[in-house]
């Protein structure tokens, strides 16, 4: 194992027996042995990757692709059929929250039980208990029985324990959706802090957004193999495009099958293949940087200055006007419109949408123009990438265009850093 690595996974495979009719009892095992047929399903077909110390990676993929199984093997609650996993350092997992909680015991007693299950000794728990209680914000209730807690309080306590178990390697499975928005933000900040302290992190999540905020690298697992690996910025668009293509193909197949009432299922299959090929081709053309259901499509983007002249270079004090021409194919009444700004080294500078800004969606016509006006973009000199999107409030995307346009922004002065912050100096004498 290389010394700079925290995790090395070498070509692991895993098969599961999926029983069609599982017999567990003596009667079933002896009398109906013929019925106990099973299929062997190959969940992982040979996955290898390395994670450096202090690095954060995200595992993505659709349900059943094997990402959670991979995480379970890293946690050592399952073992691979072949291949090997090497880990360097103390491992802790945020997979199950509140394990071992006893409803009749106090919050404090439950902290001891829960933390001990994560492998902490009594001394270590005592060192952390104040932090845990403080993080959970349950100071006033900590000596009440846990059964009197609301479900939000319960999860807060559970998360506070889990996040305070220091580890060299932290494995997280889809659990950041805990508590209210404020607490979620707190958890996220804590996670960033843990990362900055040099902890290696592996996250399995459906929320690409979360992964983009924490991880340097995404690994896309598809049908038990790694399909793509790289920075989230590059991998996620291709993943989304693939998923959108898949669901289009699926719905096409369903429509077809419905229309013909299953008569020519072969034909439907053909259709599916065609559909997925089509979408893949389409997306290839756009370098996998654009995806969505195409109910609303961005036709043209024009960037103007305050005098209405088209430009691609601006000072960081100048007004910038973005005009977005769209076609509303599905005649939708309204849509959320969003924008994100990245520096060209993929640092996320800013993001917002109409829901955040005005808590409403924009009304749409059959086709039209939406104007987005920046009074100024107070960043320092550099090249900036803009993403634009039309989407539903729940995140379902009509048209997501990564790298829709780029602008060069110049400094008035020679300041450094990400932002240009308004300020003044004063000398009191």
């Amino acid at each position: 194992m290389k010394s700079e690595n925290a995790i090395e996974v070498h070509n692991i495979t895993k098969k599961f027996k999926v029983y069609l009719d599982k017999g567990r009892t003596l009667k079933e095992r002896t009398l109906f042995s013929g019925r106990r047929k099973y299929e062997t399903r190959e969940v992982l077909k040979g996955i290898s990757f390395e994670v450096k110390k202090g690095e954060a990676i995200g595992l993505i993929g659709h349900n059943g692709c094997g990402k959670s199984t991979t995480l379970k093997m890293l946690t050592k609650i399952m073992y691979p059929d072949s291949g090997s996993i090497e880990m360097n350092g103390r491992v802790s997992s945020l997979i199950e929250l509140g394990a071992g909680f006893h409803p009749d015991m106090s919050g404090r007693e439950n902290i001891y039980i829960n933390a001990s299950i994560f492998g902490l000794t009594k001394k270590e728990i005592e060192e952390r208990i104040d932090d845990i209680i403080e993080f959970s914000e349950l100071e006033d209730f900590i000596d009440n029985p846990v059964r009197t807690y609301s479900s939000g309080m319960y999860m807060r306590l559970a998360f506070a324990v889990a996040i305070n178990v220091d580890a060299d390697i932290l494995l997280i499975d889809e659990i950041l959706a805990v508590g209210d928005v404020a607490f979620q933000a707190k958890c996220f900040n804590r996670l960033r802090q843990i990362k900055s302290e040099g902890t290696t992190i592996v996250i399995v999540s459906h929320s690409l957004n979360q992964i983009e905020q924490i991880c340097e690298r995404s690994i896309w697992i598809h049908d038990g193999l790694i399909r793509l690996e790289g920075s989230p910025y590059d991998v996620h668009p291709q993943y989304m495009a693939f998923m959108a293509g898949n669901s289009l193909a699926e719905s096409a197949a369903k429509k077809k099958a419905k229309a013909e009432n299953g008569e020519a299922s072969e034909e439907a299959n053909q259709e599916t293949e065609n559909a997925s090929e089509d979408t893949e081709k389409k997306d290839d053309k756009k370098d996998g940087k654009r995806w969505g259901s195409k109910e609303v499509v961005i036709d043209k983007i024009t960037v103007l200055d305050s005098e209405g002249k088209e430009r691609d270079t601006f000072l960081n004090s100048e007004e910038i006007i973005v005009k977005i021409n769209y076609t509303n194919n599905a005649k939708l009444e309204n849509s959320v419109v969003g924008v994100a700004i990245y520096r060209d080294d993929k640092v996320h500078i800013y993001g917002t949408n109409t829901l955040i800004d005005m808590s409403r969606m924009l009304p749409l016509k059959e086709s039209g123009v939406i104007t987005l006006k920046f009074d100024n973009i107070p960043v320092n000199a550099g090249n900036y990438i803009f993403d634009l999107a039309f989407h539903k409030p729940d995140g379902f995307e009509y048209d997501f265009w990564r790298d829709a346009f780029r602008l060069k922004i110049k400094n008035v002065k020679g300041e450094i850093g990400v932002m240009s912050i308004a300020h003044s100096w004063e000398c009191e004498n």
Partner: protein
Amino acid sequence: MFKRIKEIYEYRTMISSLVKRDLKGRYKGSVLGFLWTFINPLFQLLIYTFVFSIVMRAGVEDYYMFLFVALIPWIFFATCLAGGSTCITGQKNMVQKIYFPREVLPISFVISQFINMLLSFLVIFAVMFVMRYKFNPLALLCLVPVMLTEFILALGFTFILSSITVYFQDMQFIMGILTTAWQFLSPVMYSVDRIPERFQTLYMYINPMAPIIIAYRDILYYGKVPELITLLTALAMGVTLFAIGWFTFDRMQRHFVEEM
């Protein structure tokens, strides 16, 4: 193997907090709370006394005591057989989601039952004291190795049964029946001399609980030091079954999560 022991030792806080949770949590919410731990055996003792001293004379002096000093250790063992078989499957959520040495669950189950037995023994001692039984200090000293031997034996069986139950759920119900049969095949309600002489040796060497119960009765009821051969037989069988149990458990635990 050494690495494994070290890892289990690192999880000692988990073992102790699971034991505490079991002991404290069991009677939580009831009015008498922890007192139930003593009330239960005391009332059992009263019932046996009533039945065997007044209703059904057994022909053994102080039969209730004769029975009780064997019954308490037997109940400990029987609980480990029947209840211990579900100690992995009963914690499904934890086993499926969190890594910890799986041995922790059977170990903490047996420890918590063991502590219950010790508390019941306090009741016995109290009654013996009130009834002015003679205590033989040397014999009482022998109680320590006997209890430890029984602990190891019970842990060995819990290892075997809890891991088999994961693969084969009927095991827990089969054990319910077998435990009853086993009780009647052990010298709990009768002494060994009631067994036909030609079977006695076989009986001693086939049933690992036989020498243990004989030792308990020698110490507490007869107030004498058990014979060395009884102690050694008990120890040898205890250690053997413990080794078999742990080996079986270790072999089977790798696939627990998939089988559950």
